[in-house]
């Protein structure tokens, strides 16, 4: 798709910032998202590396440009699970609300 992800050759984004001694994961939740992706691609019908990449491409453009690398992964995992009928958008929203209300 002709989406925001296809940025090759675009101008205006500035230099790529390189982090010295960059860790594999910057937070525990990133490690968990990485593991969840392996599981989803191994076991969920229709999920594979290519469907995963396409799910990232389908992120809303402004979101794509502003969220972190593993946030993109997390959003893509949600999309694959919704597409496969494992969870619904309403269930995800309800869980977020419950976590916010519990102060977790």
């Amino acid at each position, binding site marked *: *798709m002709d989406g925001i992800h296809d940025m090759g*050759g675009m101008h205006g984004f500035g230099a790529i910032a390189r982090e010295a001694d960059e860790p594999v994961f910057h937070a525990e939740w990133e490690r968990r998202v990485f*593991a969840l992706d*392996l599981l989803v691609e191994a076991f969920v019908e229709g999920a594979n*590396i*290519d469907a995963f*990449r*396409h799910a990232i491409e389908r992120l809303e453009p402004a979101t794509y440009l502003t969220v972190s690398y593993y946030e993109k992964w997390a959003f893509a995992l949600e999309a694959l699970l919704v597409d496969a009928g494992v969870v619904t958008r309403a269930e995800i929203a309800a869980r977020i609300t419950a976590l916010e209300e519990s102060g977790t």
Partner: protein
Amino acid sequence: MGALPAAAIEAIVMAGGSARRDVADAQARFKPGDAVVACNIHPAGHTRLPRYARGKRGVIDRVHGVFVFPDTNAMGGGEQPHTLYSVRFTGDALWGADGHARDRCYIDLGTATSTRHERRAADR
């Protein structure tokens, strides 16, 4: 849903799952050195062909073998294994006078929707 044993995780993470498929009836249409033109396609679905290369002339650099075709596999269309090539583009082919003629850009492209013979393109 079966269990994924913890002992299997490290091998999967370190080696990755290969997209290579040994399909007996697949034949490479192109050989290294063949001139090709990247297709000018704009699918709403997934493609590994970047916009900046579409319609651009390149040369087959190497034949990788037969691999899962991401354009269909992403969309529920199955693996449809294709011959995968490394296609070499020059900087000025991609970027015109703003590119550098000595730069080379290598893009992995599959036969069916990504490339066609330059001769056929010239006939049109």
